[in-house]
């Protein structure tokens, strides 16, 4: 019941954002810093507080105890200039070995993010924010499984960074399409036996569109010239005494940049046995809603002014 109540509120908030957004007019960009477009990546939350829609993100994890498939949707809306709110939810399907399948929704996730510091000429951005994972809003069937921590509300203050390599000298010009994004956060499980943890993730990207349009046009045809090969990592380090070691994955893959959407495909390689016994996979479709619905998205709801990007 609580779960449905929160979902109803979330959908109402979404509709309100649509309605308010419709009456503003000026547009500014998604994920652009100077000449650099930082694409949203599946595992590393990008540092931009802009309108984004991820629908769907599918993650497959062949863990030892049970095979798991997650389907996630998230929606971000810029509320004030450089400040955005995100809501997300994940549908989880578990197939335990020797047991019945379980499925249901995870807790509702929220994020608030503010772009604190930007240097466009250096393709640099630093943002701050926090994730809120609202305990008790997930499905009971999932809470009773290995996701027992879903009972608890989690707060994760984060620092987000993005940096392009545009300042490299001419002798290293073919490295200029490289860019890094990273998130450093601290999970706080208030008043629970679950260990707090440091969350650290990042992506190293090589943008072929950037190579073609800013460094050297080497004649790549579409769709190759629309690709961004990348490697992500996503780690969790529990901080309490006697806690388990760091777990996580290294995720090589590729993004394809379309006109109105982006498609990502990554392998998910566990770093140790505690992180999983086999390679999993990630698939994400990111919809550029500010391009698809320019009258509605791509600008803050409040204090929208002409001096923005």
């Amino acid at each position, binding site marked *: 019941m609580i779960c*449905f109540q929160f*979902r*109803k509120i979330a*959908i109402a908030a*979404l*509709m309100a954002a*649509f309605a308010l957004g*419709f009456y503003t*007019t*000026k*547009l*500014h*960009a*998604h994920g*652009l810093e*100077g*000449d650099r*477009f930082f694409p949203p990546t599946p595992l590393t939350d990008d540092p931009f507080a802009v309108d984004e829609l991820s629908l769907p993100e599918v993650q497959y994890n062949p863990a030892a105890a049970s095979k798991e498939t997650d389907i996630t949707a998230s929606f971000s809306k810029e509320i004030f200039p450089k400040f955005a709110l995100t809501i997300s939810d994940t549908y989880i399907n578990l197939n335990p070995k020797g047991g019945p399948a379980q499925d249901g929704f995870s807790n509702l996730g929220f994020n608030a993010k503010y772009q604190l510091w930007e240097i466009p000429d250096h393709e640099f951005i630093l943002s701050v924010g926090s994730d809120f994972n609202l305990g008790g809003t997930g499905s009971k069937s999932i809470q009773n499984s290995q996701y027992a921590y879903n009972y608890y509300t989690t707060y994760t203050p984060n620092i987000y960074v993005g940096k392009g390599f545009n300042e490299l000298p001419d002798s290293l*010009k073919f490295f200029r399409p490289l860019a890094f994004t990273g998130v450093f956060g601290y999970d706080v499980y208030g008043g629970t036996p679950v260990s707090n943890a440091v969350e650290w993730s990042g992506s190293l990207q090589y943008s072929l*569109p950037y190579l*073609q*349009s*800013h*460094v*050297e*046009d080497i004649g790549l045809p579409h769709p190759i010239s629309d690709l961004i090969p990348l490697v992500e990592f996503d780690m969790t380090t529990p901080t309490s005494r006697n806690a388990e070691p760091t777990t996580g994955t290294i995720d090589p893959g590729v993004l394809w940049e379309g*006109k*109105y959407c982006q498609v990502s495909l990554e392998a998910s390689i566990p770093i140790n046995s505690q992180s999983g016994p086999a390679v999993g996979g990630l698939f994400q479709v990111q919809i*550029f809603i*500010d*391009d*698809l*619905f*320019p*009258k*509605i998205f*791509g600008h803050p709801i409040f204090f929208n002014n002409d001096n923005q*990007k």
Partner: protein
Amino acid sequence: MKINSTRSFLIILYTLAGISLAQAHAFLDHASPRVGSTVAAPDHLELWMTEDLEPAFTKVRVFDAKGQEVDKKDAKISGATMTVSLPKLAPGTYLVKWKAVATDTHTTTGTFNFTVK
């Protein structure tokens, strides 16, 4: 409940799609002289963007190694292309700076070099 919510979301999405003209950010598709190329002195620079442009706010400029603007300041914007005339350029490396405002007001910027041999 879930089906009704999903249906409502899709109805809103497609309704808004109907009243919103889809556009996209204008990125550089290709240029003449080509990005990063070495060429004989060209008499003009032309950029082909991925979207139609708003002429009043779109700019393209060419600078020499000393930072002096060398183009003839006669940029023409038509559809998704921008063109500017160049004088007889001396051998050297030149910097192109562009600012593109798509017809839906999305703004993008970019820079690249070309070299005159």
